[in-house]
């Protein structure tokens, strides 16, 4: 699957719409996720950014349109087939979503135990490698409740990358972290993509983060993707709504209503 510029596309939303009852979340969205790149999706809170990640992962199915991973339309396959496709994709959750009854090591080992026939020793070694790559080699036996916010994010990353997926989806990876930890996490995302040779999609509100890690960017507003382009163009996109958002201006086409 290739896009208009001839680049390999690992995932594609094609005229995708999603509504829950009368509440419309996405309308006619088309977006290509280019292989080997980090794509940042920006937009207001509640714009449906996380929904896009869940559509790509097959956790949600669109009301209209298609979602392709590689060449496969994941909307028209069985749940078992989707589970197979999901083994190529990892979703790193905003609040990590580690199973709180398992230790960090067991959380990271979970996808390996479920989907591979590796021995206990091989799983332990692979998990230790993944934890080491996010700086948590000493946290194997810790419970998620014993970790700080930044450590939880990194443990979530370790679980997301332990199976060496082709595509990692990061849901607000730096939200709620201090600027230094945010920069560390950004560095990790870039390092993971460059070192493992995968592809990433990151949802963010943080323009500094988007510029630091993004190769490509897309902005979602009003349920539509209103702009796509290189992440380096984010601050001078020429699109008034994108400019308002990226510069954090109160005045502009995006009207925020504060109801009292």
């Amino acid at each position, binding site marked *: 699957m290739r896009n208009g510029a001839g680049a390999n596309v690992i995932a594609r939303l094609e005229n995708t719409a999603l509504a829950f009852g009368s509440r419309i979340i996405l309308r006619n969205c088309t977006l290509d996720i280019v292989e080997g790149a980090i794509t940042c999706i920006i937009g207001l809170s509640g714009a449906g950014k996380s929904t896009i990640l869940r559509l790509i992962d097959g956790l949600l199915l669109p009301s209209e349109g298609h979602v392709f991973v590689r060449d496969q339309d994941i909307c028209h396959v069985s749940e078992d087939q989707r589970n197979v496709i999901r083994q190529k994709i990892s979703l790193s959750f905003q609040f990590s*979503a580690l*199973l*709180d009854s398992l230790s960090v090591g067991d959380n990271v080992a*979970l996808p390996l135990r*479920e*989907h591979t026939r590796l021995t206990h020793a091989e799983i332990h070694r692979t998990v230790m490698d993944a934890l080491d790559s996010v700086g948590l080699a000493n946290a194997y036996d810790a419970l998620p409740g014993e970790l700080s916010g930044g450590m939880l994010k990194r443990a979530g990353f370790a679980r997301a990358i332990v199976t060496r997926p082709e595509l990692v989806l990061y849901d607000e990876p730096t939200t709620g972290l201090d600027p230094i930890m945010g920069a560390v996490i950004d560095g990790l995302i870039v390092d993971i993509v460059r070192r493992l040779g995968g592809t990433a999609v990151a949802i963010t509100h943080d323009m500094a983060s988007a510029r630091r890690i993004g190769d490509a960017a897309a902005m979602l507003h009003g349920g539509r993707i209103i702009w796509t382009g290189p992440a380096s163009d984010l601050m001078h996109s020429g699109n008034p709504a994108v400019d308002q958002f990226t510069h954090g201006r109160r005045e502009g086409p995006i009207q925020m209503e504060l109801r009292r």
Partner: protein
Amino acid sequence: MRALDRFGRATIDFFEYAGGLALLSAESLGFMLQLRIRIAETISQAALLGVQSLLIVCLTSLFTGMVISLESAQQAVAYGVSNLVGGAVAYASVRELGPMLTGVVVAGRVGAAIAAELGSMVVTEQIEALRSMGVEPPRFLVVPRLLALLLMLPLLTIFADVVSIAGGAWIAQTYAHIPYDSFVSSIRESIDFSDVVKGLVKSVVFAAIIALVGAYQGLSTRGGAAGVGRSTTFAVVLAIILIFASNFLLSFLLFGGR
């Protein structure tokens, strides 16, 4: 028109709930038949859900057996048939109260725990994380709990039967001066092994109700901490109602002839 609308919505909700519960039951049964079972987790759940319920089940059964004995001994002595007290206590305990009280107590303790645990996993996105890893929540979470209860509830029921009868025997002896051998021979005349087995069949059905209602309610949780609270309460209430209803049905089917 509004009443009709409400009735329509309630009907749809009912069938949606029943359908979801049936689907979860079928999925869980499917995984069990394919032997896709996490054995270590099942054993751990059996200890957590079953063994830790032993004390409360024994206490409840002890006092129930004692009160049946107390009430029946009073009447029996008045009518000069004190030799029937053992049979009355065993009959009630083995066929009805043992399985049902164990079911109700476990529904309160374990059904609530299952609903609360799975519900909080939903609101903290842990269930979604499992799905995103290609792990089926029914196989990973529901099957171990269901199997653990299917194994443990009959065992708890046996303990409940024994403790209830023992408590009854003690009260009969101390309160109505009915000797233990008379009490035991009355039991032998009143119930046979098939009664015990039928009581255990009931407990298997109750185990399935408690585990599946708790799990379905937990997995259907919406709306944060308040949602977890609602799920937990509803799981217990519904499981207890279903236990009572199915107990009547099972008694009719199993013991209807005698």
